[in-house]
């Protein structure tokens, strides 16, 4: 039986959190914030468009790395959480591949991206398509010449690290990811291809 994305998303999208008496949200082993998506977009877009063209790729790699580390540590927190055990784990019949499908369902419920895996070669390659993601909001009219879903790139690589890399916390950067299509560039969906680092 395939993983039931709809049921997972329907359950987890109801999650509402707020800062405690100290204004802190501690969950999944990390501190969380819930902020307007355009804050993150504003900085990423202004940074990548401020630097000289020959330095843009370096700036983009740093943004992707921030997401990669975030995805790796928060992803581990998700996998260790009670929510995962109660909501997602019952659908994980074929680990670790079902684990990846479950993680993509979780981030869909979190509002990061309406994303699913369309191709998965165990231990080797994952292709994710996202039919909506907040990082595409940087373009309101026309098409961008640069792909801008740095967060999703980092997250996809991080999830492959968690599932196929060395045991946490030693498996980070086993995989890398490239964005090959982008809604912000006029494509129907964003596409992200994660492969082993160096491939």
């Amino acid at each position, binding site marked *: 039986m395939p993983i039931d994305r709809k049921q997972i*998303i329907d359950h987890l*999208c*109801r999650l*509402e*959190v*707020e*800062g405690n*008496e*100290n*204004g*802190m*949200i501690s969950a*999944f082993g*990390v*501190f*969380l*914030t*819930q*902020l*307007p*998506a*355009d*804050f*993150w977009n*504003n*900085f990423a877009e*202004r*940074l990548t468009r*401020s*630097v*000289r063209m020959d*330095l843009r790729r*370096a*700036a983009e790699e*740093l*943004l992707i*790395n*921030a*997401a990669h*580390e*975030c995805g790796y*540590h*928060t992803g581990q*927190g998700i996998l260790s959480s009670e929510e995962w055990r109660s909501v997602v784990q019952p659908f994980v019949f074929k680990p670790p591949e079902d684990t990846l499908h479950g993680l993509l369902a979780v981030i*869909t*419920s*979190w*509002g*990061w*991206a*309406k*994303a699913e895996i369309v191709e998965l070669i165990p231990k080797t390659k994952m292709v994710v398509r996202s039919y*909506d993601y*907040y990082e595409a*909001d940087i373009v309101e009219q026309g098409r961008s010449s640069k792909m801008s879903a740095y967060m999703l790139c980092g997250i996809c690589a991080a999830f492959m690290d968690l599932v196929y890399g060395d045991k946490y916390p030693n498996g980070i950067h086993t995989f890398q990811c490239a964005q090959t299509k982008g809604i912000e560039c006029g494509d129907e969906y964003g596409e992200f291809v994660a492969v082993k680092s160096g491939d």
Partner: protein
Amino acid sequence: MKMSTYKALEIDYKYDPKQARRKINGNTFVFHCHHYATLYTQLAIDAKDLADGPQLLTDAAEDSFRAWFDRYDADHPGMTLEEKADMGRQFYSWSGLGDMKIGCLGENGGEVYLHHSHLDSGWLKKFGRAEKPVNFITCGFIAALFSSLYNQPARSYRVVEEKSIACGDMQSLFIAVRV
């Protein structure tokens, strides 16, 4: 749709399944962890030779939070200055950014304290003690709050972090000055 109230702050959360977006009062909000916030901050510092990274991060925060304050203000007409300031403080806390106390405020500036801070706690957890204050996101937040309270355009207030939890101080102190 579910309505909830964080003290006096009105929060209307709903999930849009068509877009897979979390909407707070109609605006797209996302969760992110302290790794992300601190690495963005570190990136802003490291990018000083490429662009003015800390200022970019401060300005990005100011513009985003100002837009939020203005929308909230439009949806809740008639709030007093005190109520608006309290809304800003509570929003800071609700969002997980920390525990903010406004020491004083006036049209020419003011003093804002943090007793707990997402960015500073995250920084200490991830990198250890900072040599200089690093909470550019909160500088932008406070600039947005002051300019919104006094109906001034963006960049009307310069905010400097004088004390910093990440640097070892018991509390962070931000000084806002009208420019």
